[in-house]
């Protein structure tokens, strides 16, 4: 696949757009359709496209699997951590209202952080699954 010029050029120009779209879905999720799950999958699609065209080794160089494992764990920790922060601020678990000056600002900030965690975990778990299956039979 590496010699296929058209595929390489097209995917190189598409990948940045996919990533930008993923970030849009991620951070616009609290106003429009979208959120962490969708953004994570779109973002991982960019890397998977890169792996399909440029090979698995090149993709693993972009994002090594150790980093993926840390990212996956970090996402869950961000989500659960937001809950712990609200506990310390005197609210119930995941009660975002106490995060900001006003209730609305708090809810806004809370959902943004939590979705960031979701996005990170979904992105890295998708890639871990992809690498695990694609890497079968390699030495």
């Amino acid at each position, binding site marked *: 696949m590496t010699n296929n010029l058209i595929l390489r050029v097209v995917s190189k120009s598409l990948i940045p757009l996919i990533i930008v779209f993923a970030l849009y879905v991620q951070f616009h999720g609290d106003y429009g359709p979208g959120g962490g799950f969708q953004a994570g999958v779109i973002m991982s699609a960019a890397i998977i496209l890169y792996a399909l065209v440029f090979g698995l080794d090149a993709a693993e160089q972009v994002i090594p699997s150790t980093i993926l494992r840390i990212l996956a764990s970090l996402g869950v*920790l961000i989500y659960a951590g937001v809950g712990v922060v609200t506990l310390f601020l005197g609210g119930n678990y995941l009660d975002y209202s106490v995060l900001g000056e006003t209730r609305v600002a708090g809810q806004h900030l809370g959902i943004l952080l939590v979705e960031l965690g979701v996005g990170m975990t979904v992105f890295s778990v998708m890639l871990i699954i992809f690498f695990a299956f694609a890497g079968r039979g390699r030495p």
Partner: protein
Amino acid sequence: MQGHLSLLLVVIPLIAAPVAAILPRGRLSWALALVVAAICAILAGVQLWAVVHDGVISYELGGWAPPWGIEYRIDAVNAIVAMIVAGIAAITLPYALLSAEKEIPEHQLPLFYSAFLLCFAGLLGITQTGDIFNLFVFLEISSLSSYALISLGQKRQALTSAYQYLIMGTLGATFFLIGVGLIYSQTGTLNMMDLALRLPEVSGLKTVHTGFAFIMIGFALKLALFPLHLWLPNAYTYAPTVITVFLAATATKVALYVILRVLFTVFPHDFVSATPTGDLFLLSGMTGVISASIYAIYQVDVKRLLAYSSVAQIGYMALGIGFASSLGVTATIIHLFNHALMKGALFMAVGTIIYRIGSCHMDNIQGLGRQMPWTFGAIVIGGLSLIGVPGTAGFISKWYLVLAALEQQAWIVVAVILIGSLLAVVYIGKVIEVLYFRPAKETHLAVKEAPMLLLAPTWVLVIANIYFGLNTELTVGIAQRAAQVLGVTSG
């Protein structure tokens, strides 16, 4: 404050799980898991105490009031189940260090403990939550991680048995979800207490009946209620020893708790008693006790033998549910607690033999009882408890079960319980005979007693078996209270 405590019971292992996954060494992850399990056991103890003394604890997640938000609602029933889960985890983990290092490659250990913590968090979540959909989410967390844990077993059959469990478990979870969906479509609520208020109005509808059937079958699959038990013997036989101990002592107990909750709290009593549910539980309990005990007698692998015995013990618990009387449910909850103690002790004792010789096939373990006296002692006492000899925890559960059967004048059930105990004498006797009265294999003459770190947790459970056989105040008291909470009328 007590509400936060109930929440932390779920959140602490949930936060620890991803941390355990990124720690570099297996031992570090183990230490983290051990600390978490110990904290959770203490929290569960405090929670149980608080529930017994101050009544129901309710916690609103995210500050959204029920029935719209998710509510954690703890009464005597879930407090005791949470105590079992957290307590068994805290006893299993010291045992896990050596046993898991022997059976699982070092580079997988951090992920192993991470999955263990996730399973632990899922099981605790199921017991704590008062929201039936949230319960499904925790069910999936605990199930998915237990499939992964079972597949880590040493033999290649571990993969097929994990796959078998995956298929059956997913069927069970899907059935449960279908049932919840059908009920939601008629009541518009997912909060268990709110469901209990709204279901009487719609209980005549076919949809509600169908939903009820789906939920029951779904959890009967997860519980491994006879004849839906086929995944259990393989899963328990080929899983790593620690996981067998943990799942045998907790996972089926949690599934049983959900069945109790759905039958007695969520659905109205006259609705349930108008369906043949009670008779079905009695029927499957009786056939389960007899046939699984007979299967157990013919097993040549001790782990598999104990797994079949678990199916039989689940049958006893089903009998108590089948009576639907206060005494019956009390007996079920007592047995739920005691069975966790005895199966935990027995699987741990067998695990120490596996630690030494790498197998628990009858041909390999013969004569080892004399070389490993402490292990052998644990198997004998655990076995006596399983049979139900007076002075052990097993006797208390059988006693209450027989009382419940006598109260209903169900002579057949009394006979089944007695025959089941006699069959247990046969299969436990077989293990003891092989371990003690046969000559050891020449290759195993040098096998020594297991290390302290394995024996100590085993004996903690063995002593608990005797303690709860002599002092029944705690178990019976809480079980009676739980039956009261579930609102089962006597007679």
